[in-house]
């Protein structure tokens, strides 16, 4: 008997030592990065006390780490630690950011930016034309072509900078507004162009970051713009969407932010709760289904058109998205309304037309087994999904609806879900027939370039392989022209041809869903899920 208890005690001791050992290691590690643990033990309690005392503080939940993307340690629009030269309002119009104003020469080659005066980085260094130069070089090295073909950059004064292009690049302002082009203190950029610390100019300073878990933002007292109200913001990565909702319901968090923050199927859970306000906005995140135009059977344009006719995006939005989506009419999304072709270019849900086209392409059910065949081969295609995307959007349901809609024509769709890395490799090599992904994009011009140009980044990466000389010519022309209305005409034409080629099918425009506790005031949901932290306050 005693021996047994002794043994049990020994095991317990071993476990305790193991723990203690690790705890010791962890304390050592504490000196290096800001460490996990202890942080949120009483974060909720602290926050409640703070709110009672009238201190402005919130906890926000989201489904990812707001520090990882872009490699900056702080997602610019989600944290407001880093700012861009140009920004976009909730209608996506340009508004001044760190650049107070800008002008471009008539030939479209030279852009001159007038910077805000008296702006300092969080480390006290001055934000000036040289810092801008440093950042523009950094970003154009990691994302070649983002700013067009830059010939030279001239610092004309402490707050004036000119960028000379070797040929006109109309979407330059869009590129400046891209979060990846955020301005970071040159001291926080190493020799290889990597950002070591997010030292920016924004209304908030990142004071703590535990990767994968928590980020703490504190008010920048020296902010050049509107002084923020919230003293402290805690961003919590709560990976499970249901837990996020329950945390909001139990008032442990005050807001759920970000795209994919709330899944459509969860809206019913909070719709009628008096202490929660649901926010929605038409987002700038279109979702495209891609078709592999390089191999049988989708290399035949008639077959691709037949697939377009067979699909019914409305039923997808109803069933998979609970109505939180918009049917698209062209490759260009609704958020780029100025550039969107006025006509309804894509025709959906017309089975007769689809069957006729398939017959013309030589596909019919000769052996009457219910499936189409040609030369003894059944019409079978694969729909490849990525695990990384399936977790944030209801792609599995969408693929199943499409599978069912195509099966009515006698087409067999095999759905495969693979891990994200394998997904991109398989697509690039053209191994799949269909896939789907979201794409926020940078500008209307570069969107069409990326997806429809034969050398377009997405056209290649997604294994679409569209090669239409006419589209290439029109896009090249549109990118180089300085006349915006001429560019629009050219891109209208591109959209028309694209709807005939059907190399991609726009499935839906996302409606963003966020929610806040009723005490949170001033949050305005942005189509690009930027958070206007400096306007937000808590009522007591």
């Amino acid at each position, binding site marked *: *008997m005693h*021996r*047994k208890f*002794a*043994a*049990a005690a*020994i*095991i317990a001791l071993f476990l305790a030592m193991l*723990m203690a050992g*690790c*705890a010791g*290691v*962890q304390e050592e*590690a504490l000196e*290096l*990065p800001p*460490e*996990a*643990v202890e942080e*949120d*033990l*009483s*974060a*909720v309690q602290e926050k409640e006390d703070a709110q009672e005392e009238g201190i402005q503080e919130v906890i926000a939940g989201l489904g990812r*780490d707001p520090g*990882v*993307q*872009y*490699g900056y340690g702080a997602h610019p629009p989600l944290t407001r630690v880093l700012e861009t030269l140009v920004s976009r309002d909730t209608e996506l119009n340009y508004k001044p950011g760190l650049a107070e104003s800008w002008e471009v020469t008539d030939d479209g080659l030279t852009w001159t930016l007038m910077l805000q005066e008296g702006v300092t980085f969080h480390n006290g260094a001055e934000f000036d034309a040289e810092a801008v130069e440093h950042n523009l070089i950094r970003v154009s090295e*990691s*994302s*070649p072509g983002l700013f067009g073909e830059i010939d030279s950059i001239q610092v004309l004064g402490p707050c004036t900078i000119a960028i000379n292009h070797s040929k006109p690049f109309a979407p330059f302002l869009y590129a400046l507004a891209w979060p*990846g082009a955020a301005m970071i203190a040159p001291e926080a950029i190493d020799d*290889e162009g990597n950002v070591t610390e997010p030292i920016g100019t924004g209304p908030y300073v990142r004071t703590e970051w*535990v*990767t*994968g*878990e928590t980020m703490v933002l504190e008010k920048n007292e020296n902010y050049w713009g509107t002084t923020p109200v919230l003293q402290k913001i805690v961003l*919590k*990565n*709560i*990976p*499970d969407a249901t*837990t996020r909702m*329950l*945390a909001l*319901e*139990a008032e*442990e968090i005050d807001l759920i932010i970000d795209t994919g923050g709330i899944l459509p199927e969860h809206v019913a859970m909070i719709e009628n709760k008096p202490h929660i306000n649901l926010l929605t906005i038409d987002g700038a995140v279109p979702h495209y289904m891609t078709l592999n135009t390089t191999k049988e059977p989708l290399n035949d344009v008639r077959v691709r058109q037949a697939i377009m006719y067979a699909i019914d995006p409305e039923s997808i939005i109803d069933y998979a998205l609970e109505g939180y989506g918009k049917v698209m009419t062209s490759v260009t999304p609704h958020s780029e309304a100025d550039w969107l072709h006025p006509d309804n270019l894509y025709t959906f849900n017309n089975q007769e037309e689809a069957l006729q086209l398939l017959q013309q392409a030589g596909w019919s059910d000769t052996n009457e087994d219910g499936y189409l065949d040609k030369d003894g081969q059944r019409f079978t295609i694969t729909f490849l999904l990525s*695990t*990384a995307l399936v977790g944030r959007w209801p792609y599995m349901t969408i693929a199943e609806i499409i599978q069912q809609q195509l099966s009515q024509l006698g087409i067999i769709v095999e759905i495969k879900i693979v*891990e*994200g*890395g*394998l*997904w*991109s*490799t*398989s697509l690039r090599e053209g191994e799949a027939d269909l896939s789907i992904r979201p794409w926020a994009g*940078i500008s209307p011009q570069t969107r069409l370039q990326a997806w429809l140009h034969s050398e377009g980044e997405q056209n290649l990466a997604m294994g679409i392989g569209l090669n239409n000389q006419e589209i290439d010519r029109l896009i090249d022309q549109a990118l180089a022209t300085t006349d915006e209305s001429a560019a629009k005409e050219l891109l209208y034409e591109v959209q028309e041809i694209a709807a005939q080629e059907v190399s991609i099918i726009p499935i839906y425009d996302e409606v963003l869903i966020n929610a806040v506790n009723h005490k949170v005031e001033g949050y305005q949901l942005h189509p690009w899920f930027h958070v206007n932290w400096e306007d937000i306050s808590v009522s007591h």
Partner: protein
Amino acid sequence: MIAYILKRFYLMILVMLIVSIAVFSIMHIIPGDPAEIIAKELHGAEVSAETIELVRHNLGLGKAFHIQYLNWLGGVFQGDLGFSFRTGQPVYNEIFSRLPATLQLAIASILVSLIISIPLGIFSALKKNTIIDHISMFAALTGISIPNFWLGLLLILFFSVNLGIFPVYGYGSLAHIVLPSITLGTGLAAVTTRMLRSNMLEELGKDYIRTAQGKGLGITGIARHASKNALIPVVTVIGLQLGALIEGSVVVEVVFAWPGIGRLLVDSIFARDFPVIQGCILIIAAGYVIINLLVDISYAYLNPRIHYGGSHE
């Protein structure tokens, strides 16, 4: 005994070497280009082919497989598990800053499972084929069958949202650990309860118990004698449950936003963060091997009738 422990120790190192080769190979055999993924993680979706090549070069991903392995293994022996592709932090820090959270959860879950299973197992064996026995076995079956994530969410809904007793998610205080450890512990308890019950039944049928009964020993006395022996195999089961615990903690840590290595592993797999995946699996395997060694040693101690190999100690 010492010879036995030494022998087991050498075996342990051999096992760990094989594990390390397996772990390192798998990540390189599966298709997909790590350099491309990392470049995208670091620089956003719009990366050029040059950036991808630069990443490949900087991280040594272009070198021959065995060179990459030996470099990595050499580092491991010096306590250097490399740097996370995702965060740039040393893998060692990434893992060891999260290990305490996972260990706390594991120990709390084992405690929960013992608190449930010991009385239940003993009692249902003593009251074999009564309604109490049936109910507890039904409960055990239910415990095995309920998926962790679902039970976790139900517990949150009831105890956190409706009653407001425990926090919904997070880590730090004693209150935070209650729901996750119940979620994990009930599944474990189910297995232990069934095991303990059948051990008890076996012991109750043995001669020494019958003798004790003959001498007029009461039910509590019998239970005490039988449970001493019936509990020995439970120690083994607890050791073996470490695997189930890690598997379960991957899910439970996601549901409760618990900052442990289960979640680190999931995040790293999605991001193809090779050094962290390798480090996590290596640490988990090491934990597994060590606990099994401890279990075997404690077993020798618990039951002196068991001898290991050789005739002398």
